[in-house]
């Protein structure tokens, strides 16, 4: 097949070429401007953050040296003995890890329940009153923005050392985070079931129960599982401020230079976190798959 390509007259061609060149130049200018702003911000931040590249270069060898020093002594002839020496505290550490997981679980569950209750109050499509929505949202935002470890610091003073402040801190943070995500899900649901329940005389609770909840439940569970994953990481460091779990053991090992203990505990934490990630990802994919097939 042949087609004749129309040839533009010279003047028109030049105009087009000029316009193209101008567009490219404008884009270049924007990129250069962005880069300049970025570099200026980097320099300002570096000055503010006491970045000392000399000191860094001088001390960088300490990072591999640190990892070398926390690495256990290992030789092939005595591998088993070395291993058991490295993980000498395994029973205690597994118990603490179990505690950490339980703290994360209890915090997530409590937070998910609170978030579940609050999210409907924060959804503009279910609640008429602007004030209720506004106030609930600000409360959730507060719970979310204050870092959980700050809550933990304050709760340790109020409730004493132990797992309780850790659970409460995670629960509050989870309430804020999940409440927001849940509310976003609720605001995106199909309005027809809600109207249906309202039209057949249901009150607000019935509207939520039969109109909204069936649409959002699988999404909620998926978000809660994701949050559990995040909370396991958070619970691992709760012990830094005395709020239970394996963190206490880790920070002591670091501060007292029990080098091989540091690596053993870190390894345990990393493996646990990976296992949890893997499991929850499986479950979440199944949940979302179920939802996909139901539709």
């Amino acid at each position, binding site marked *: 097949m042949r087609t004749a390509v129309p040839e533009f007259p010279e003047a028109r061609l030049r105009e087009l070429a000029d316009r193209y060149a101008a567009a490219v130049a404008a884009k270049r200018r924007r990129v250069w401007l962005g880069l300049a702003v*970025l570099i200026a*911000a*980097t320099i*300002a*931040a*570096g000055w*503010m*953050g*006491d*970045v*000392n590249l000399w*000191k*860094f270069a001088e*001390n960088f060898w*300490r*990072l591999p040296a*640190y990892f070398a020093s926390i690495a256990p002594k290992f030789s092939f002839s005595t591998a088993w003995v070395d291993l058991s020496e490295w993980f000498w505290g395994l029973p205690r550490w597994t118990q603490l890890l*179990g*505690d950490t997981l*339980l*703290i994360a*679980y*209890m915090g997530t*569950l409590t937070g998910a329940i609170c978030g579940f209750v609050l999210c409907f109050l924060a959804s503009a499509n279910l609640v008429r009153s602007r004030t209720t929505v506004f106030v609930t949202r600000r409360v959730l*935002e*507060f719970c979310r*923005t*204050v*870092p959980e*470890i*700050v809550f933990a*610091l*304050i*709760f340790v*003073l*109020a*409730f*004493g050392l*132990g*797992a*309780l402040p850790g*659970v409460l801190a995670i629960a509050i943070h989870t309430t804020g985070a999940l409440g927001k995500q849940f509310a976003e899900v609720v605001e995106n649901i199909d309005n027809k079931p809600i109207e249906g329940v309202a039209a057949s*005389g249901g009150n607000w609770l019935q509207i939520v129960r039969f109109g909204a909840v069936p649409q959002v439940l699988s999404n909620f569970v998926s978000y809660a599982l994701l949050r559990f994953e995040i909370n396991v*990481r*958070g619970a*691992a*460091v709760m012990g*830094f*401020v005395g709020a*239970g779990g394996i963190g206490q053991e*880790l*920070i002591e090992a*670091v501060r007292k230079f029990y080098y091989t203990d540091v690596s053993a505990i*870190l390894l345990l*934490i*990393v*493996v646990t*976190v*990976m296992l949890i*990630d893997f499991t929850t990802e499986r479950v979440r994919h199944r949940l979302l798959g179920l939802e996909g097939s139901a539709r």
Partner: protein
Amino acid sequence: MNSFGLENQVSIVARHPDIFRPDWWHRGKIAIGVGGAVALFLFGIVQLDIPFHRLSDGMVRLGGFVQLMLPPHPGSWAEVLKYLHALGETVSIAFLGTLGGALLALPISLLAARNVVANRIIHLLTRRSLDTIRGVDTLIWALIWVGIVGLGPFAGILAVICSDFGTFGKLFSEAIEAADKNPAEGVRSSGGNHLHSVRFGLLPQVFPILLSQVLYYFESNTRSATIIGIVGAGGIGLQLAEQIRVLEWQKVSFLILLILMTVSAIDWISSKLRFAIIGQRPIA
């Protein structure tokens, strides 16, 4: 009108027994799930030795703290300047940490993406090492770096770089793998080599997505940068932890307020920039 339904309900139920019969199998599954969750919770209470008698006392004490916190007050003008400086440190930590993590993660994420490097072993190795780095919390990285470069915000920056390196490596490689492969094939078919296809076929597609992810994390890193001071890695967390320990509640609430305002300001800026770059699109 209402009686219409009620009168006929019995006959409707009688006509469609399959629909109205309770589904015991389904209900049983739900009951087992809920029962298991509650049992695990109760087990947790026993195992963690949650002291319920301290709960009410603690609540009273907490209420006392909140009363002492109001109104927020920084103490003196010199303190305000000190806090603002600490806040600047925190924002710098978040900024440089995010930037450094992103710059380091970009080449590695290309290695971890299946459509750029076809070698399975390289792919698997980079993925697993990224997972390992990501499994260590920012606070733990801060603890390690404080031991290496000493106390101060620089340790915080390095800690944020490390933990972001893992996160960005994963996010970037996923974004790269999700990219449309037609442009890359176009470059190949017009005679470009593999590097050309990555540079001109792949990167232009994913760059806006990566940029928006980086901006999103800048905000979340500001939150985590506020706390790494607790282990001595600089920023406002150091001040906050100190004031909590010496029970200066008015200063504590002032600092929390300061953090809230900063985080929401950065949230606002980063979401504005994000929308300017990619429009209103959710970040996966």
